[in-house]
């Protein structure tokens, strides 16, 4: 399949409200992971931290008057979409029907959903706020962004565990190959939510002092993915090429954070084959590693299988930004920015080994 190109990238993360700020913070070794304390917090030893975005302003990208109507995930998405369009010097006006959006998510709508449930439970079921309900849907971030910037092409939201963002990219590549659009904003948006956080804590999924596990995070990241011919026709700067992208499944219980090394290795090899690269062509690996013992061990075994003793440089952003379906999109945006800053980096492999056996691997190369 024809390899599409990335012409702009953005990220709104717990380390900064732009991709540049996020990169600088990561380079300085900063982490956004911090404690979550409130009246309902469990005893300290059972408490999980999170990588949260604190006070957030949508300005200058979106005026506060408009932002008030949006849930937080949608605010992150609209800001990230506008930043990515600006970075790509891409104007939607005049290309509305040839522009689309595909976002992954996990918990989008959690804020309005839990508030609506609270109102129904403690007030009257029939008097909960009608303004909350439309933003409880998972597609609110992508669709609010589509409405805000006038996108009339394909508009899709995907929820597939931690690997949602690469899953969206996988669909986007087919949509571009079929000529359904010339340019697609692809990424993810997700919000951290206290009710969900406490639930994950209670079922022992997240990291505490006493046990390993992942750390919840939030944010949005978007790349503009274009058909190369269309991008060149508009004189776009090309930052990276999506040279390989593989999607596989392992048949595992969706509640078990396990992974099978053989499936992970097969996905990496498939992505390398598509890119026409040997393992030695990879200069950097964005690891899926998130602190969950089973998946981390499986990823190490799969890397050893594919790369042998010649393991390339690796980077783990989840230690600093937590785990959630936006991470894959943040990694793609970071990788494109890395290739743009230094085309000599070599190809970059991005692993997304989600819970329930949702396995994807992407290879980005310099143009």
């Amino acid at each position, binding site marked *: 399949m024809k390899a599409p190109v990335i012409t702009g990238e953005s990220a709104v993360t717990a380390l900064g409200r732009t991709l540049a700020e996020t990169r600088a913070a990561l380079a300085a070794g900063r982490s956004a992971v911090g404690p979550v304390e409130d*009246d309902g917090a469990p005893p300290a030893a059972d408490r999980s931290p999170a990588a949260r975005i604190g006070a957030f302003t949508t300005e200058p990208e979106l005026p506060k008057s408009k932002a008030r109507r949006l849930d937080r995930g949608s605010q992150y998405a609209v800001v990230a979409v506008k930043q990515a369009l600006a970075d790509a010097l891409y104007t939607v006006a005049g290309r509305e029907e040839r522009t689309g959006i595909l976002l992954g998510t996990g918990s989008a709508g959690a804020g309005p959903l*839990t508030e609506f449930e609270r109102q129904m439970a403690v007030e009257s079921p029939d008097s*909960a706020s009608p303004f909350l309900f439309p*933003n409880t849907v998972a597609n609110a971030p*992508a669709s609010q962004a589509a409405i805000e910037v006038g996108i009339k092409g394909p508009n899709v939201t995907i929820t*597939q565990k931690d690997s949602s963002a690469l899953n969206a990219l996988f669909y986007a590549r087919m949509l571009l190959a079929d000529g359904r659009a010339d340019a697609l904003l692809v990424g993810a948006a997700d919000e951290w939510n206290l009710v969900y956080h406490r639930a994950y804590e209670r079922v022992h999924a997240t990291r505490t002092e006493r046990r390993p596990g992942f750390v919840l995070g939030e944010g949005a990241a978007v790349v503009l993915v274009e058909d190369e011919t269309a991008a060149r026709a508009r004189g776009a700067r090309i930052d990276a090429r999506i040279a390989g992208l593989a999607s*596989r499944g392992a048949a595992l219980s969706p509640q078990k954070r396990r992974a099978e090394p053989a499936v992970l290795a097969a996905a990496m090899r498939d992505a390398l084959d598509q890119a026409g690269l040997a393992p030695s062509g990879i200069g950097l690996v964005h690891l899926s590693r998130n602190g969950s013992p089973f998946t981390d061990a499986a990823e190490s075994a799969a890397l050893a299988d594919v790369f042998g003793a010649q393991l390339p440089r690796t980077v783990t952003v989840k230690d600093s930004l937590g785990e959630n379906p936006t991470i894959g999109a943040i990694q793609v945006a970071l990788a494109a920015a890395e290739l743009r800053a230094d085309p000599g980096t070599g190809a970059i492999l991005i692993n997304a080994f989600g819970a329930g056996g949702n396995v994807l691997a992407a290879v980005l190369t310099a143009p």
Partner: protein
Amino acid sequence: MDERRVVVTGLGAVTSLGNDLASTWEGLVAGRCGIGPITLFDASAFRTKLAAEIKELPSGFDPVLRRRLSRTDVIGLTAAAEALADAGLDLDREDPSRIGVVLGGGVSGLLDSENYFRDLVARGPRRARPTKVLNHPPDQTTDRIAERWGLLGPRSTITTACSSSGTSLGYAADLIRHGFCDVVVTGGADTFARLTHGGFNALRSVDPEPCRPFDLRRKGLSIGEAAGLLVFEDEGHARRRGARIRARFLGYGVTSDAHHMTQPEPTGEAGARTLSACLLASGLNPGDVDYVNAHGTATPQNDSAETAAIKRALGKRAREIPVSSIKSMLGHCLCSAGAIEAVATVCTIETGLVPPTIHWEEPDPECDLDIVPNVARESRVRVALSNSFAFGGNSTVVAFGAP
């Protein structure tokens, strides 16, 4: 790339009309209504106390597994089992990495996690019981199906509200056309919850009586529950194993209204764009279309906007063909609506029987197409479209054809 064509080789259904395809289809052509009093929670405080619930949840699961499953998982797995059996696939002889799972989802295990939220409000986070709360994400049923049958191909869950499972059919077909899969289990499952009932009530878009699509006095939708599962297959793969081909998946259109989070674009311009995108991708002309399975929610706004969209996109053909809404019988099954309506559309092509729009009494001049009022009709259908429009302006239209 050789042109790989997508065919339908298996169907499965669990609906308020019955727990399998045969009883569902029989109910639809008989014009039976699945909408009745809500039993899953106390609905006495709501204006509307009706929904199209599954009458008796399918049984026969291993008890240990059953305790872990959500209501959505149960009907999704049941319909998937029926669809896979219908397709006659011998999974021992297939390469599992070539079989994908792509569903639409949304509500998933919400009915259970709502119990946690309520416990949380009443007793605080330290004492609330998080039973089954991990079934909350909408991708659970997708993973359950992959796990149950050991399907190792690409997997995805589309979460675009009421167009989720319509779009999932498109993603599934693309996986086959682009050579990533030979077989994809697709469609969707969705069940009832306080959130969806309370939400549509808050928006005043639920009818206190069973919904009446395209009727002048329509007041809104009735919510339903359903699983609709389809086995999509590469035609060459299906022919080599001697499978029965029930229909072809001809193509789809997926677009964004860019209009409003909850309101359809009233002139039909946006809906017509989706319909035209589907015709283009499917290699069809308006004159080829013999039937439209309408989104037909019975909200005042949808039905008139959809009528305008069909007229814009199909021109004079719009007045020559039947356009019916099975939501009048099954309710609006939200994230599985596109899937169960696709199943019904395939059955329409196979049998030449168009299911009716029931509860229809009074014509609306803004809904002036042939909506097949109240009684099913015989009509030769070689090509049919099915519409799905959603919150957020996420619109999808799919096209099926005779084999």
